[in-house]
């Protein structure tokens, strides 16, 4: 501010200071500010009054309960899906074991039959030599 300014003001500066002297807008201005403040403070009250207090009381726990049940349902669904995948993997493994066992049995039978055929052939050759 100007208090510490030792430099004297020139005529233009003095004229500017005089012409820019603050103008009071009057009591109507203060009243308008008050009215706008009152209107601004009423607005949120009107907004809250639109929802009945009794309804607002149970609306909050209801929404919390709804959100909690959605979370629980999602968690249970995820667990069930995991279980279903594990069960499917187990079934595939058991099927593989069964197929493998069947294959082994089939090979065993085939090998036994081939042995029988070979033995018959050897007997037949021995009989031919003795004749």
């Amino acid at each position, binding site marked *: 501010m100007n208090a510490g300014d030792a430099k004297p003001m020139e005529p233009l500066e003095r004229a500017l200071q005089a012409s820019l002297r603050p*103008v009071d807008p009057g009591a109507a201005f203060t009243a308008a500010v008050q009215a706008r403040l009152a209107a601004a403070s009423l607005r949120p009250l009107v907004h809250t009054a639109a929802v009945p207090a009794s309804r607002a009381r149970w609306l909050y726990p209801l929404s919390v309960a709804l959100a909690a049940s959605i979370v629980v349902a999602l968690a249970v669904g995820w667990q069930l899906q995991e279980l279903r995948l594990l069960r499917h993997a187990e079934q595939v493994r058991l099927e593989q074991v069964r197929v493998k066992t069947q294959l082994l049995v089939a090979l065993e039978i085939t090998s036994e039959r081939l042995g029988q055929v070979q033995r018959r052939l050897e007997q037949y050759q021995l009989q031919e030599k003795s004749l």
Partner: protein
Amino acid sequence: MHPIAGSPAYIGSVSPTSLTLDLASLPAGPLIGQAVDGDFAAARAGDTSAFVRLVRHHQARVFSLALRLTGRREDAEELAQDTFLGLHAQLRNLDSALHVRHWVCRTVTHRSIDLLRARARRPQAQSLDQMMLEVPVEDASGDPLLHRTLRAVLLRLPEIPRAVVVLRFQEDLDPLDIAATLDLPINTVKSHLRRSLDWLRGQGLEMPR
């Protein structure tokens, strides 16, 4: 800024003719400061009447800043009212009555500059001479015609130099405070002030000796 009590800007709204009488009837400077501090503390605590007293303390300063910057009474009233509504919402974030003064000056100046820039984007038919007619003339001393012409010529300055001149000569702020209010470097403020004064001298206005 100077403390509010005893500052020329603080009592600036009192007309020069009644200045001596009013000062005699008022309490000493520190007491005025205490009253404003008390109003600030009460308003901050939610006392609406204290807030209204704060509005009364600052309304001349805030309205005049907006009026000198925008040149239109309607715009100035709107901006000043918006500033006080903003002040009411911001009271909890302010520390003192001095802080309130700085906040209102800064806010109304920036809002006025924003309005001027918005107005420049949407040019209107109103001329500067018409704007000059809207600015109320309350010249109790000096040359009313000169004061009126000076205010009209000021409206021809771009918004930042105009704000610098108005803050300097209406609010009696020094360049450092103007720089803080306008978020400008101090050298830019000094340069705006010097060039604006040079420009005003070149407008051929006859100054009283």
